[in-house]
């Protein structure tokens, strides 16, 4: 039988993109250790609404760590304290009675705040739009073995393809760089023969778009790897740099 915990919350409230925000505080006395972090926020919103207050907006969808919708900065860490865990999969058992938790939205010029803890991450979509795809001829499906893929490359591509686009890498990077996201998207396509053809154009277009969107430069802090809920390594950034350099001579 688990005992209810008291958790002191401090969360960001902001009515809209162009108005200044502020922190608000609330103490929850009925936090159960089995709750997920987002369920704890559901309880917060329930209590706020019962008191006639406006609930706190936060993003979520699948609540099983695969959609990339949730991305809260919890006590200064994107997705909270656990490695390779999205905040929807973070459980309150990681906290103790009386803990103070500060919740902020991912902060980056390229991720404008829509409301409270919800940010607009369409900058990522625009990076994908300029090259994060493979052009294929329409018609009947190609014979499955026509394009052999080496096992190592296939495995590597799969690791990079695990990126859920949550933006934790941007949130945690001291420079608000999107290099890990862009690198992962590039690498997962470039590793395959289908993606190889457009490799150079893709690398140049997506790297340029990253700057266009207002993301910062990478300074090799590798904090992005530490907070990535899918554990994507900064080797993706090395791949991106290699592809960009190769594009210079192609």
């Amino acid at each position: 039988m688990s005992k209810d915990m008291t958790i002191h919350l401090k969360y960001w409230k902001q009515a809209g993109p162009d108005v200044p925000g502020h922190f608000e505080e609330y103490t929850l006395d009925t936090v159960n250790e089995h709750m997920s972090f987002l369920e704890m926020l559901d309880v917060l919103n329930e209590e706020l609404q019962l008191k006639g207050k406006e609930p706190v907006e936060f993003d979520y969808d699948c609540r099983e760590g695969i959609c990339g919708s949730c991305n809260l900065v919890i006590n200064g860490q994107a997705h909270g304290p656990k490695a390779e865990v999205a905040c929807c999969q973070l459980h309150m058992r990681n906290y103790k009675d009386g803990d103070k938790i500060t919740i902020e939205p991912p902060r980056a010029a390229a991720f404008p705040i829509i409301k409270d803890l919800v940010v607009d991450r369409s900058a990522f979509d625009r990076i994908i739009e300029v090259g994060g795809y493979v052009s294929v001829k329409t018609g009947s499906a190609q014979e499955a073995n026509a394009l052999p893929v080496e096992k190592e490359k296939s495995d590597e591509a799969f690791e990079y393809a695990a990126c859920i686009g949550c933006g934790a890498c941007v949130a945690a990077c001291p420079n608000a760089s999107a290099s890990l996201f862009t690198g992962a998207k590039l690498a997962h396509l470039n590793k395959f023969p289908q993606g190889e053809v457009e490799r150079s154009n893709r690398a140049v277009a997506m790297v340029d778009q990253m700057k266009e969107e207002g993301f910062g430069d990478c300074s090799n802090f590798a904090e992005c790897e530490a907070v990535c809920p899918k554990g994507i390594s900064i080797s993706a950034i090395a791949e991106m740099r290699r592809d960009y350099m190769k594009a210079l001579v192609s």
Partner: protein
Amino acid sequence: MPSFIKAINSQVGRKIMTGITGIGLMLFLIGHIVGNLTIFGAPEAFNIYTKTLEDLGPLLYVIEAGLAFFFLYHTILGVSIWWNRRKARPEGYKKYQTKGGPSHQSLASKSMVYTGIIILVFLVIHIWTFKFGDTEMVKLASGEMARDLRALVIEKFTDPLYAFGYTFVLSLLILHLSHGFWSAFTSLSMKSKEASKKVQMGAYGFAIVIMLAFIFIPLYIYFTGGSCDAALISCN
């Protein structure tokens, strides 16, 4: 294919150029310390070494211009990358902490821009003091005349302001190099985890050796008073 100018101004290009200039400057540091340590060789060794450099004539100017370019380019890139973060994140976090694990956030990585600027300011003073400092002319055994830079070095490092000022600034090299060495190779697309770990260990070793070698000279001269009786300083 992007133009070369566009490429080196891209976010990838800027980091690669920071890495290339950084590696160039680290090679310079190795050459510089090897030359400096001749001060503990034969009495004439240091002045012969400095005269050899000066005798390079126009080639020396080319090398100096190249070094100045590397220093300035490296600084401009570093400062501009640091400055851009204000635009990329206009409002910072109330609370921020590293998650540890594979993160390379440390005192060294977070202070790169500050240690770099201090080293650059120091460099101006250093060049002013030794390259353009007043020296007597001394006759070498070969009969040639050379600037007595050895005497100037000993004179300056018996002054506590210079000796400890140099020691302080050169101690910062351990911070700048312990991250910079690893970061330079990472910027040049080092990918494997194993290589990354080895390069980080190499970075610590390089930073420690370079820092100790550089601070040894002012501290040894200060504590021995530049005396000819000191074990490593021979006057005849």
